[in-house]
């Protein structure tokens, strides 16, 4: 029961943070939806690790063309080259902002790492011993993206 309450609180926090970020810095509306990304399309994933009294990861994932669109909105560049480094850099920064804002509701003393990025098809991201605390999809006018908060504190011998 308590776990469920915490998960719901994280969902509400995530919804608020993501909405604020996309409205403020991308001038884009987001709506929470029940839709998941197909693994057979080219995806890009940004991961921010948390360490300290609570261990885990914040994962932000979307299709590659969406990431390009978000980078264009974020940087206000109309026609960003499809191979531009600014695309993964932007997704990493978006994940960093979501994680940084979410950190306020995580246990005191938690520290954040810098973004890791994965690109490709047919891959899954798995945190050893991790449990998804909440997973939210958000719809935008170019498709939906996924944000997951993974609790890695359940690893044997850690976080107890």
């Amino acid at each position: 029961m308590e776990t469920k309450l915490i998960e719901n609180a994280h969902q509400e926090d995530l919804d608020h943070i993501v909405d604020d970020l996309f409205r403020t810095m991308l001038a884009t509306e987001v709506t929470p939806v029940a839709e998941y990304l197909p693994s057979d399309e080219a995806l890009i994933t940004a991961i921010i690790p948390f360490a300290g009294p609570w261990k885990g990861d914040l994962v932000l994932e979307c299709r590659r063309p969406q990431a390009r669109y978000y980078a264009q909105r974020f940087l206000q560049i109309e026609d960003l080259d499809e191979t531009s480094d600014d695309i993964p850099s932007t997704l990493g920064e978006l994940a960093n902002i979501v994680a940084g804002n979410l950190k306020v509701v995580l246990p005191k003393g938690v520290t954040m790492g810098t973004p890791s990025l994965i690109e490709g098809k047919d891959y899954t991201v798995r945190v050893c011993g991790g449990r998804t605390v909440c997973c939210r999809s958000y719809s935008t006018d170019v498709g939906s993206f996924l944000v997951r908060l993974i609790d890695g504190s359940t690893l044997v011998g850690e976080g107890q």
Partner: protein
Amino acid sequence: MTILVVDDSKAMRMIIRRTMREAGFHHKLVEASSAAQALTVLQSTQIDLILSDWNMPEMNGMDLLVKLKTDGHAIKFGFVTSESSSEMQSTAKDAGAAFLITKPFTPEAFRSALEPILGGGESQSSA
């Protein structure tokens, strides 16, 4: 007046540059992608204000601020970071930071933080 923007994210350095213009600050800006690079820039360039990310690999923004204070630099310093707990706000203030701007930010947030230091809407050459 020259402002140094320190952030390991190229995208965020671009955003800060743009937001500075939108906020009416057209000062000369130089960039560093790490705290170590910022220290190198400071050896050759007269910097009046540093806008730094907090969460960076190797040497973070707080380490940079402490290093500058230890070395006797009196440059104005502010954080632009995604983290904004009251603990971080007070840590930044205690270490001598002039302000902490939280991402996501607006041009108004920049105006509010920077006007006491730069004055309002000063127009100078932009690098």
